[in-house]
């Protein structure tokens, strides 16, 4: 048993040694240590989820709990190229800052560890206050363990002309590595920014506890991209939690194609009138991959809106989970909540569990939700073949067209093209369908 456990006292349930070690190494000022302890206690009380936990019913973490995860190896940060995208970037390897490209001092972007060391008020005010530790035990664990990350603190009226790109890479040696990418975005009144979180391929087995918290002030507009293309052995457990004030907007684009098990919990609290969230998501899984998308939107007050479009493409023996919940709280009149989830099953062995949920406790609301699961349209397939396109290419083409409905919503062209190529690359006859895109 590690010394950290002994020091914490006998009443806390035992945690794996690798967690105790990481917790012991996590530093910070007193206020942070307090939050770290609370996070660790929350995680210890909840433990690793099992299939008996409703929120984890279809996502089995046995593969994670059987392993232990360490600090990883030193590796040169290699910025994954995105053609045509040249913007300020920060690169993290195993959760620690490894490189910074063209990030100007003045824009309110800095490494989280440095901001905490400088006692930045935004950190103290907001860090670990937006992602609900009771619902997100891995966010609680991240709070206990994270080493570094990014603070984006936009003063009122700031407009970031260029996107900001945050790249997170895991580099494992012989043993699996733990990384805790942590991002805090405080968007002041009427500020605007585009933030890209790019979870790159990395190497080897890793566990990523990736937590992003967003506090959007009145009239702020955040366009958020999340590209998850981790290594095939990776475990990715992400949380994106946002709190939106009056007339602010969060547009989230979430592409999940990597990892052995990948999950994102996406929460948006629409806390003041006029707040809006768009959630565009696409998961493409094959072989034995598992992707889990959980989302929750709280329409807490009158006149807020949400629009969720999630699609999935499953092949091989892959499995995906979609659970989207919209809660319209008492008195939240004028709520507009739209949600749809559509899935394409390309193999008889693939499996999807989809559950759109609407809880409405208010009158005068406009809500719709729906989920579909199906195969490729036989008429469209025949039409393409009758024009000389071979069957396999025609299938890939229709699959791509299905997925592209989500990607087409990305306004940032280089990123959209990169995302499209990621998807194309996962389909049979990639070269031939590239001619169509």
């Amino acid at each position, binding site marked *: 048993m590690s010394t950290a456990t002994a020091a914490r006292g006998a009443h806390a349930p035992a945690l794996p040694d690798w967690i105790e070690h990481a917790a012991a190494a996590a530093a910070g000022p007193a206020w942070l240590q307090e939050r770290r302890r609370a996070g660790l206690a929350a995680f210890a009380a909840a433990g690793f989820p099992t299939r008996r936990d409703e929120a984890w019913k279809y996502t089995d973490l046995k593969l994670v709990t059987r392993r232990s995860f360490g600090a990883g190896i030193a590796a040169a940060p290699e910025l994954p190229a995105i053609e045509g995208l040249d913007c300020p970037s920060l690169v993290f390897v195993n959760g620690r800052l490894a490189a910074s490209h063209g990030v100007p001092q003045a824009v309110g972007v800095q490494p989280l560890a440095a901001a905490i060391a400088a006692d930045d008020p935004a950190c103290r005010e907001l860090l670990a206050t937006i992602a609900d530790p009771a619902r997100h035990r891995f966010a609680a664990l991240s709070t206990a363990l994270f080493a570094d990350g990014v603070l984006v603190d936009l003063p009122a009226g700031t407009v970031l002309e260029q996107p900001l790109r945050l790249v997170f890479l895991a580099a494992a040696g012989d043993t699996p590595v733990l990384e805790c990418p942590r991002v805090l975005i405080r968007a002041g009144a009427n500020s605007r920014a585009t933030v890209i979180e790019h979870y790159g391929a990395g190497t080897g087995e890793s566990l990523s506890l990736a937590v992003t918290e967003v506090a959007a002030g009145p009239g702020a507009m955040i366009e958020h991209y999340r590209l998850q293309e981790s290594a095939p052995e990776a475990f990715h457990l992400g949380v994106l939690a946002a709190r939106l004030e009056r007339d602010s907007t969060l547009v989230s684009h979430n592409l999940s194609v990597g990892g052995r098990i990948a999950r994102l919990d996406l929460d948006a609290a629409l806390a003041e009138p006029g707040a809006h969230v768009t959630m565009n998501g696409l998961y493409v899984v094959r072989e034995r991959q598992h992707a889990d998308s959980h989302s929750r939107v709280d329409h807490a007050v009158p006149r807020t809106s949400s629009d969720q479009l999630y699609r999935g493409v499953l092949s091989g023996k892959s499995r995906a989970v979609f659970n989207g919940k919209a809660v319209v709280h008492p008195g939240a009149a004028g709520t507009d909540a739209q949600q749809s989830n559509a899935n394409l099953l390309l193999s008889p062995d693939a499996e999807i569990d989809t559950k759109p949920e609407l809880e409405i406790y208010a009158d005068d609301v406009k809500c719709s939700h729906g989920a579909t699961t199906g195969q490729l*349209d036989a008429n469209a397939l025949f039409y393409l073949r*009758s024009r000389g396109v071979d069957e396999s290419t025609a299938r890939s083409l229709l699959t791509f067209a299905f997925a592209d409905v989500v990607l087409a919503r990305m306004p940032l062209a280089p990123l959209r093209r990169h995302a499209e190529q990621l998807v194309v690359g996962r389909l049979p006859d990639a070269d031939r369908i590239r*001619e169509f895109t």
Partner: protein
Amino acid sequence: MLSIKNLHARAGERDILKGLDLEVGPGEVHAIMGPNGSGKSTLAGVLAGRPDLEVTEGTVTYRGQDLLDLDPEERAREGVFLAFQYPVEIPGVNNVYLLKAALNAVRKHRGESELDAFEFLALVKDRMKLMQMGDSFLNRGVNEGFSGGEKKRNEILQMAVLEPALAVLDETDSGLDIDALKVVANGVNSLRSPDRSMVVVTHYQRLLDYIVPDFVHVLSDGRIVRTGGRELALELEERGYDWLRGGANAA
């Protein structure tokens, strides 16, 4: 060009074609007429290789080879073209890219070089002029949001670009007003040639005023019950199909 003998075909549990014979020589235009539900689209679908149709008996020979042995895409590359009665909307697949892929598939199969982007565009623009189609058609999804008439024009545009040896037009006239009908017919007529054959499926004789057939066949209950020249279409226009349905039973 095309020789159909004793063709029987079914969809699901239902027998639709019940012993159909048809000979189409090079350069000939054959009209297939018949009441709704007589099996016209089934015949067209069998020729193009629609997978949900099952041929239970008979043979189809196309330019000396067993057509039924080929996949739909192989048939297309061998020069068979079906203009669909109900062209399919495929959002997300670009109209012009499909056209290019289709043309290059045919050319590659013939051992010809693929057209470069410039040559291709010149060809498409030329054919679009023939079909009186605006540039906006190019960059839309395949048939996406097209009106009924636009879809039919798009079918004939594809045909004009691909230059098939055997074109099967399934009710290309339905849903067209008279002006659109003339445009479509003009497109089809411009493709008539001594080595291109056409099977024109229609419910009404109106189309045949513009696309003048060499032969007219009447399909009823899965078989051809009457064959004649152009005048047969006019007779059908006057008398309807009922007298032939009776004839089919008597025969």
